[in-house]
């Protein structure tokens, strides 16, 4: 698979480490009343969709940036690559 890095251009997926579902960006509030339940869902439960899947890849053998890759899990076709930083900021996770 080739991941089209937003900064570095097309790179072999072998340069990256796979982390999992991009929902991992949305870490729950540890002070919330239902924090234990939310963290169980965050840590252990996954949609595991067959089809389009947004997922985190870390460019370990490159610029060490985190990416959000949109990929079809039934064909491995990659349709969108974003910097995880930008995604997190757009969701108000980071300032």
């Amino acid at each position: 698979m080739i991941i089209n890095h937003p900064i570095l251009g097309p790179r072999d997926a072998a340069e990256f480490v796979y982390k999992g579902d991009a929902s991992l960006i949305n870490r729950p509030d540890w002070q919330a009343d239902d924090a234990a339940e939310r963290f169980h869902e965050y840590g252990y439960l996954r949609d595991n969709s067959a089809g389009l899947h947004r997922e985190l890849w870390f460019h370990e053998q490159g610029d060490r940036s985190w990416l959000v890759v949109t990929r079809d899990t039934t064909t491995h076709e990659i349709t969108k690559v974003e910097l995880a930083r930008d995604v997190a900021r757009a969701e108000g996770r980071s300032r």
Partner: protein
Amino acid sequence: MHYSGFRVIKEALTGHRGWGPAWRDATPKSHYDYVIIGGGGHGLATAYYLAKQFQQSNIAVIEKGWIGGGNVGRNTTIIRSNYLLDGNEPFYEFSLQLWEGLEQELNYNAMVSQRGIINLIHSDGQRDAFIRRGNAMILNGADAELLTTEQIVARYPFLNVNNARFPIKGGLAQHRGGTVRHDAVAWGYARGADKYGVDIIQNCEVTGFQIKNGVCTGVETTRGFIGAKKVASCVAGSSSRVMGMAGIRLPIESHVLQAFVSEGLKPLLPGVITFGAGHFYCSQSDKGGLVFGGDIDGYNSYAQRGNLPVVEDVCEGGMAIFPNLGRARLLRMWGGVMDMSMDGSPIIDRTHIDGLYFNGGWCYGGFKATPASGFAYAHLLATDTPHKTATAYRLDRFAKGGMIDEKGVGNQPNLH
């Protein structure tokens, strides 16, 4: 029809006109006591033990494609019970014991071959860990033996014992481990289940569940609605897709695992060799092909095919420990979709929906578990209590802190 040597001779002399189909091609009835979703090894074994051991009736196995067309037809056929943890080892040892009697039980030649399995050791630390695992195995009634390098070389003279990074310092052997003809397992259980009246319904895909007031009363399928008192999902690889239709999110990611076979060679490998440090294991099929594999590709996939970097990685591992592998040509490679659970161990449990049961999360260890998985799942379905060897395989163990993590790597499915 009973299979026997006498029968083979009789049929040979009479033009093979007496063989009937090994199981009926059933059409779905409107209602069953038990509907098992998934006609793979585990689903068919569940149906067989439910009918035979637990004497239940009115059972159907429904399968999207043809039986045995999923992971039971795509694995590397190894059986073993060399686990460490109390939650796992009694279960896998029970499974190995069932394998040992399987062919007589089913009157079916599954080519169960207890040719032995050796896990290679490369360092003092690894030897300590393997001794601990061997002792855990023995405590649970399994067999284990620590081998010296000389004992391994006597059996496998071609192994590279002086690899600079991973010299072979011994091995942990389980002599009762081995290989089984994978397709024959599905066919044998199907034939056995059919004999006890189980309906095996192929080309019947589940499209939804009928759930009323928290009770599951049947499944919608491509061949119409089928009512059931108990519905049992047994579709490892596609568990999230099927259970998602019941609104259940699982602690599972689907990943692709590749396997490989070389061209047929003369007998070379007497048993199974695993080079865990190099992510490689190998056995030789009765047809002569070297059957080998390594790690999962490492990303979510339902594609049943992997990518080339892992092919290279597996072959590099093989060449490091087994240099003469380079003289053989790779004949075929394929991928299977694994339910990778969050702790690397399976789930056999009820769900919060009455009448809906779940079996999955087998990671890449499902084949060896087939008999015990079927037995334990049938026990759960018939009695609503877990089998004594499967009490740890609960669906809620991640919320309650009961993880069964053999490698201790945490909730990162692609590391198990």
